[in-house]
């Protein structure tokens, strides 16, 4: 029971990070029907930007609490803004010129963009892993029995709380604001949206910006949680988040969150009760099984052929 509870906490934390990245995949797919394979690397860029500013600001676990919170908020905002610019640039350079081209073209440039970002960071930051001293330490003991301690660390609380808040905010944006309305209109009929005066290019750009901003949050969380990053983290995390988006039903925002959680939990529990080596196999197998029975994912809407 204690062991289970501990794994549940770990799984939810991991799932939050996946969920944040998965939103970027699902929103972009929803609006232009393409898989942005460079999104995982945008997440990696976000993590590096966060690392650079954490080191530049020079705060550590010893910094007083108020200052630490302020500094982290500052890093978060900087990382979100700078990563958004990367996301915007990638869309502008690699996807928009190909929007009227055949369907596979932007997919290929997306893979190209992914390689470009990885290599760029490798050249600029070096290929070795970058460690970061733990900044947020401490936590709570929830339960103790037979010498097994169930820990809920502060960093886990921070990750889950931040994720929940951001997901709520962005769900509200999509549901309530004019930008969200325009996004949904573009999803359904881009041509008609333009005819009622919606600037479709701008709406698509803003979608990439929002996706990149959330990936930057995930990047900072990943950095704080694991304490090491390298230029390659975007690949694995990106594939997992993409899986999460497909599992939840690609194009669906709550689906991405649910999918992220599910993948995070499967991975954690598989590692805990079976073998760590096969955790990815487990996650992808479950994806395959779910897709056999629910081809449009857990919360996805089945695609309706337009007549």
């Amino acid at each position, binding site marked *: 029971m204690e062991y289970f509870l501990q794994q549940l906490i770990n799984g939810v934390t991991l799932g939050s990070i996946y969920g944040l990245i998965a939103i970027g995949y699902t929103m972009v797919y929803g609006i232009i029907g393409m898989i942005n394979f460079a999104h995982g690397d945008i997440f990696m860029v976000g993590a590096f930007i966060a690392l650079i500013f954490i080191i530049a600001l020079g705060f550590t676990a010893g910094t007083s609490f108020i200052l630490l919170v302020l500094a982290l908020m500052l890093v978060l905002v900087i990382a979100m803004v700078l990563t958004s610019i990367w996301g915007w640039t990638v869309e502008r350079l690699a996807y928009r010129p190909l929007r009227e081209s055949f369907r596979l073209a932007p997919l290929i440039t997306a893979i190209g963009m992914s390689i470009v970002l990885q290599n760029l960071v490798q050249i600029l930051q070096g290929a070795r892993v970058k460690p970061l001293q733990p900044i947020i330490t401490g936590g709570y003991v929830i339960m103790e029995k037979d010498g097994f301690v169930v820990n809920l660390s502060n960093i886990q609380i921070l990750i889950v709380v931040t994720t929940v808040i951001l997901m709520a905010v962005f769900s509200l*944006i999509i549901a309530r604001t004019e930008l969200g309305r325009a996004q949904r209109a573009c999803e359904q009929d881009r041509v008609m949206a333009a005819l009622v005066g919606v600037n479709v290019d701008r709406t698509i750009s*803003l979608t990439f910006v929002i996706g990149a901003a959330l990936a930057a949050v995930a990047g900072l969380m990943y950095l704080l949680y694991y304490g090491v990053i390298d230029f390659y983290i975007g690949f694995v995390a990106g594939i997992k988040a993409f899986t999460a988006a497909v599992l939840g039903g690609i194009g669906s925002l709550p689906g991405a969150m649910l999918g992220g959680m599910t993948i995070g939990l499967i991975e954690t529990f598989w590692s805990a009760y079976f073998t760590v080596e096969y955790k990815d196999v487990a996650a992808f197998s479950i994806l395959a099984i779910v897709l056999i029975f629910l081809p449009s994912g857990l919360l996805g809407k089945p695609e309706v052929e337009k007549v």
Partner: protein
Amino acid sequence: MSEGETRAWERAPVLTVEHLTMRFGGLVAVHDLSFTAGRGDITALIGPNGAGKTTVFNCITGFYKPSEGMITLAHPDGSTFLLERLDDYRIASKAHVARTFQNIRLFSGMSVLENLLVAQHNRLMRASGFTFAGIIGLGTFRRAEEKAVELAKYWLERTGLLERADDAAGDLPYGDQRRLEIARAMCTQPVLLCLDEPAAGLNPRESHELNQLLLSIRESENISILLIEHDMGVVMEISDHIIVLDYGEKIADGTPQQVRTDPAVIAAYLGVEDEEVEAVEKEILQ
């Protein structure tokens, strides 16, 4: 109307199409077409199938870039827009041209009300400071949103759809969807409203209601309407000015009275050979 009197489309055109040509590869869909549509008029574009009516519409609303020619829209304040040079969304947001489609194109997964709010996108976007001020909850956005909902409600009432405001647009019956499309076009606050076969698929009663709606819109809103229509009953009843196309060229242009008796029009509609036109003409004049 007496002979000497000038007509609205000659005196104060809202839309001037000059030497419009549209080629698709070797096919010439519209050839050297010039016409004007008067401010406040209901102008009908008619012609047999494949005459190029929808192509003209697509050129006006930015779907196609014309191969040749100029399309000028004049606003009541005197400013003019060259429609063939504007990006697609600017035709709606800057030049204020709205259109509907022959096969209805609503945002079917969104509610009826939301369809009308999307049509007011630019005003709301500006008021919300590109959404970011809106999140913080600045008052200007809430007021703009309230105004937008009010305008939407006004049009829902005029089109008789107020009770269905929260239903998904795709769930409405066919006739209601047609009217919703017009309501959505009106929410963009157009100067020129382009309707592509608004009466297609409507029963006679619905079609009559549509006529009343269009006439009342023209009466109250100070806009001009350009429509493509097959239903001659609709065309003759409501239009002030008719332009007849055949094989991408204009064959007649005038009031319903003039067009109705024009031998070239009759020939085009009945599919008469050119040589027989005179014979047909004689028959009519008898």
